[in-house]
């Protein structure tokens, strides 16, 4: 008993006796036990040649912020990039990534969701054609070493004290948010300095970054200088939401625009799809348990489906041209917090040539989260 009480997990820092088990007379941590696997080998830190391949130029605002992030990194200051959805956060980090590569530093890019990792992998690979980019996520861990490692936060345990520059995006997303094990693994993997990015940082993160050796840079407008679409709230009883939804889908079909329909849970997602697929053909559904969802999302991007019923797996990091967004049961307070709703609304109008989009919240009653989300979006739009 005495041993158990004193044991502190060397990897995740857990000291709660509830999570400590005994194996052959020795204590072990049960909290981080599922994180076992091969560790990455360290590569020699040679300076690399970097050629940044972008099809577009950054806006003047993006350029100044990018320079500021580089200066912060070189001065050994952690940076939080607080920017609205669709501001071009990923592009902001390209400058500091290429600077670190030139210095021969090890660069990592961590995100909580695997779908976003896959999408980001292709974007970064295109932007850095001369460097070796690897993607590491669950069931895809064949290559662990590269110049730029793009990984899910669940894979950070493979890189203890490894990254000189670690860029973290969507830090306020499930499952990273509030997960002590993942947060301590992130701290353990960092050797140098980090750049955190978020559109909806929590008050704790903001407090942490308003301290010495930390800096916050803010970007309140989208790169194309168009306002973020402000959501419409439509209040209807549940039974009348479906006919409204169908009429909207019909409208979007005539305009030839793709549409996301968000449902709060996996069960309600399947239920909703089985109902509306009777009336509106050419759709599909995805959720975290759906097999082959990468293919479905890729097909959706190609335009093979008119609409996609989804849970909040697609709330972040997805960019599709001329996307329209409908949120059903937006008054479900457990799932749809204001930051989730802001992220969902941020899916619309992200492209330069289609900066507009419709965002509709279907609800039975207006909740505080809905009102706060709309207020926040309107506030950001005043900066234009």
């Amino acid at each position: 008993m005495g041993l158990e009480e004193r044991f502190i997990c060397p990897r995740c820092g857990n000291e709660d006796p509830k999570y400590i088990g005994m194996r052959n007379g020795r204590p072990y941590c049960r909290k981080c036990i599922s994180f076992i696997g091969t560790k990455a080998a360290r590569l020699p830190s040679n300076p690399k040649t970097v050629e940044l391949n972008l099809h577009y130029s950054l806006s003047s605002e993006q350029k100044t912020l990018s320079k500021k992030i580089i200066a912060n990194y070189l001065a050994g200051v952690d940076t939080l990039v607080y920017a609205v959805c669709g501001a071009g956060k990923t592009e902001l980090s390209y400058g500091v990534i290429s600077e670190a590569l030139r210095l021969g530093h090890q660069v990592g890019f961590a995100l909580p969701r695997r779908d976003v990792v896959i999408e980001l992998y292709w974007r970064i690979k295109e932007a850095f054609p001369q460097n070796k980019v690897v993607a590491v996520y669950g069931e895809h861990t064949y290559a662990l070493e590269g110049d730029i490692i793009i990984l899910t936060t669940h894979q950070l345990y493979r890189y203890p004290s490894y990254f000189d520059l670690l860029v973290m995006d969507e830090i306020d997303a499930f499952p990273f948010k509030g997960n002590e094990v993942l947060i301590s693994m992130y701290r353990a993997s960092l050797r140098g300095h980090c750049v955190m990015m978020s559109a909806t940082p929590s008050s704790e993160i903001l407090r942490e970054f308003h301290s010495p050796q930390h800096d916050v840079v803010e970007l309140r407008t989208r790169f194309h200088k168009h306002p973020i679409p402000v959501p419409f709230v439509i209040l209807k009883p549940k039974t009348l939401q479906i006919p409204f939804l169908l009429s909207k889908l019909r409208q979007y079909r005539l305009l030839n625009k793709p549409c996301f329909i968000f449902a709060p849970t996996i069960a309600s997602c399947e239920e909703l799809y089985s109902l509306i697929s009777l009336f509106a053909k050419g759709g599909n559904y995805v959720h975290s348990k759906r097999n082959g969802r990468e293919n479905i999302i890729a097909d959706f991007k190609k335009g093979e489906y008119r609409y996609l019923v989804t849970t909040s797996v697609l709330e972040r990091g997805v960019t599709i041209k001329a996307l329209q967004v409908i949120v059903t049961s937006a008054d479900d307070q457990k799932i749809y917090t204001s930051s989730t709703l802001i992220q969902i609304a941020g899916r619309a109008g992200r492209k330069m040539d289609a900066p507009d989009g419709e965002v509709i919240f279907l609800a039975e009653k207006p909740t505080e989260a809905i009102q706060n989300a709309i207020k926040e979006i309107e506030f950001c739009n005043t900066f234009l």
Partner: protein
Amino acid sequence: MPSKKLNSATPFCKVCFKAFSAPGWRSLFGEDVPLCEECFRKMSPKMRFFKVDQFEGRSLYLYEEEIRTLLYQFKGCADIELAPIFLAYQAPILRWAYRGYTLVPAPSFAAKNEARGFNHVELMFASLHLPFLHAIEKLDDVKQADLHWRDRQKIGEHLHYVDGISVQGKKILFVDDLLTTGATAKACCSLLKAHGAKRVKILVMGYTPKKRAQEEDREKPV
């Protein structure tokens, strides 16, 4: 310090780590239940009875997502604390149903057990309080899960009866974690029967429905 002792004795679930609201009836008999009811239901418990050749068998769970991850955590990650959860709710019934039986665990490759630090099958069924007999051993490292149906049936070549252990006239219960095609169970039970066991029955944790086993089989290279 009585208060601290009381606190540390508060039972909690080994899977979801939540505290129990009310202790079950078995605590009256001094038995701890290490699993909350909610987690138990998630594991899709469903007792099934089946026959492999002439041997009667019983399985406790449908082999689905939840039990798959738990078994992986137990076997693959060596989370030994999970051992008592698998029989947490069925143990009293099984103890009655198999009274007077001797357990023979499914053979596993010795080097693998050493690397893990324990024999997983033995620990899982320890709460039945029945004597164990390691009557069969596996001499090669063959993993049934990777093999095609046809190759699975050849498992008998790798199994050997351990000399010097007698099952003569005994009632034997063969235990294993999973049963998919039943090839291992069939080979082991025939071996036991041939060495004079009076009666041989099978008890497994997870059972893969036949239809799905066939589907998964199709995806494997022949």
